[in-house]
């Protein structure tokens, strides 16, 4: 009950985490001219390199695979990178947590806001690139509900990662490796049907693969497969349950772990 109140208080503070999120994003890129577009440049360049390698290895056309690789990486920024960064949700805000009374969920919403801002900049770069390449596809309307669901999942999974990362600092370091590993076994820069049938389960039974697809399909103008909805909804339900239990158990403790 107190855990739900914590979430409610966090939602009521929306104007605050909204402004603070923008402020933290701005100060992260202080004194740089391109600012958050650096992240976007990174996306385009990495996608270029990966698409080049993959098209060489698999013998597919570079022009055909590039949009799919960029869209996949773009989706990964929410599915993977945001989760890797969530280890610092509480550690980054340690000063604030020790000086002002705010619900624990506040910091999670703050993280979601920053991830969404970051995603938005990359999305603009993605569309700009697609227009330049003449490959722009009108996004499917399911992009909006898919994005909402993914952001909810960023918050839930982020909280689940942040709590043990604050208590056990090894988890914080481990997360970047776990996410990097997950990146290779998830069809982000490769495609499910490029995998041999024997190994295809890696993509089929990987919840992250479905989460990536949930964003990639509408981004490239296709409707989302029902299967991807079910997997992601299932993940969200399970994550919500775990997050609520963690919140109820450790709500008062986290501040002592900083």
């Amino acid at each position, binding site marked *: 009950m107190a855990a739900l109140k914590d979430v409610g208080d966090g939602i009521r*503070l929306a*104007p*605050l985490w909204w*402004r*603070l999120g923008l*402020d933290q994003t701005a*100060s992260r890129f*202080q004194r740089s001219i391109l600012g958050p577009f650096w992240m976007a440049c990174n996306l385009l360049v990495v996608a270029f390199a990966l698409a080049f390698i993959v098209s060489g290895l698999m013998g597919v056309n570079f022009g055909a695979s590039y949009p799919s690789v960029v869209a996949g990486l773009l989706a990964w920024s929410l599915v993977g990178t945001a989760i890797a960064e969530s280890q610092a949700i509480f550690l980054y805000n340690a*000063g*604030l*947590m*020790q*000086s*002002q*009374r705010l619900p624990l969920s506040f910091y999670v919403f703050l993280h979601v806001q920053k991830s969404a801002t970051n995603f938005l900049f990359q999305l603009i770069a993605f569309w700009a690139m697609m227009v330049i390449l003449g490959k722009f596809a009108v996004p499917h309307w399911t992009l909006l509900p898919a994005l909402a669901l993914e952001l909810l999942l960023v918050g839930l999974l982020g909280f689940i990662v942040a709590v043990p990362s604050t*208590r*056990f*600092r*090894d*988890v914080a370091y*481990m997360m970047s490796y776990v996410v990097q590993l997950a990146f290779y076994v998830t069809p982000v820069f490769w495609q499910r049907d490029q995998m041999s049938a024997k190994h295809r389960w890696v993509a089929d039974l990987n919840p992250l693969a479905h989460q990536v697809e949930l964003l990639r399909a509408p981004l490239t103008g296709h409707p989302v497969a029902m299967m991807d909805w079910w997997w992601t909804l299932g993940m969200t339900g399970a994550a919500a349950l775990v997050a609520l239990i963690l919140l109820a158990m450790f709500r*008062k*403790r986290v*501040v*002592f*772990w900083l």
Partner: protein
Amino acid sequence: MTHQIKLTNVDLDYFVYSLRSQSLRSAVFNLAVGGKMYKAAGDVAAVKALSNINLEINEGDRIALVGHNGSGKTTLLKVIAGIYHPTRGELHIDGDITSMIAINAGLDMEATGLRNIHKLGMMRRLPRKVIDSRVDAIAEFSGLGDFLHLPVRTYSAGMLARLMFTVATEFEADILVLDEWLSAGDADFVKKAGQRMHQMVEDAKIVVMATHDHDLVRRVCNRVCELQGGKIAFLGSTEDWLAFRETHAA
């Protein structure tokens, strides 16, 4: 609406996690050996930071928390500010709290003083217009003037104290919680700050302040709570406390 802080039988156990216990390896070891070996080595120390605190602070009180280093002053401030939840006991608060516990809390050291004023105001959920309208007053009272255009990392401790105190008191708050950093300001500023706190009390507000500066207590506070090893050793008016000090010092 009357403002009040009320603590009833508040205990706070502070868990100190050593470096070892913050690593996963020792937790895994704990499982493997049945949680005895490493726990016996005392990797998680539970410190009873506060025990059985009963304290009622009413409107118009300027209460000083005094005591040796480690007696629980800052911990009590943090409980009052809602940062630490009491392990046992009840905490009841009526009113909006502004806490200035760490001197650099919420400051962005790279940003200018001006930007930090906005940021601190933002953290208190004030509209931009209200913050803008107070900037001049803050520049004047803090005496920082043009220094507000410099990044905060170039400030001295005293300048930081000036900035923080001024911002804390410039925007209305029902309850003001301050840690001892105020004494980092020079005599001139501490005097000015004292006057401002008197002013705040005339507007029927509560100030809770931890300090080592007995002179400051005498000038600013009307009540004193002395802590000793996490317990209240003395609670009463400033005059009584000064008398209590006399007898105990002798």
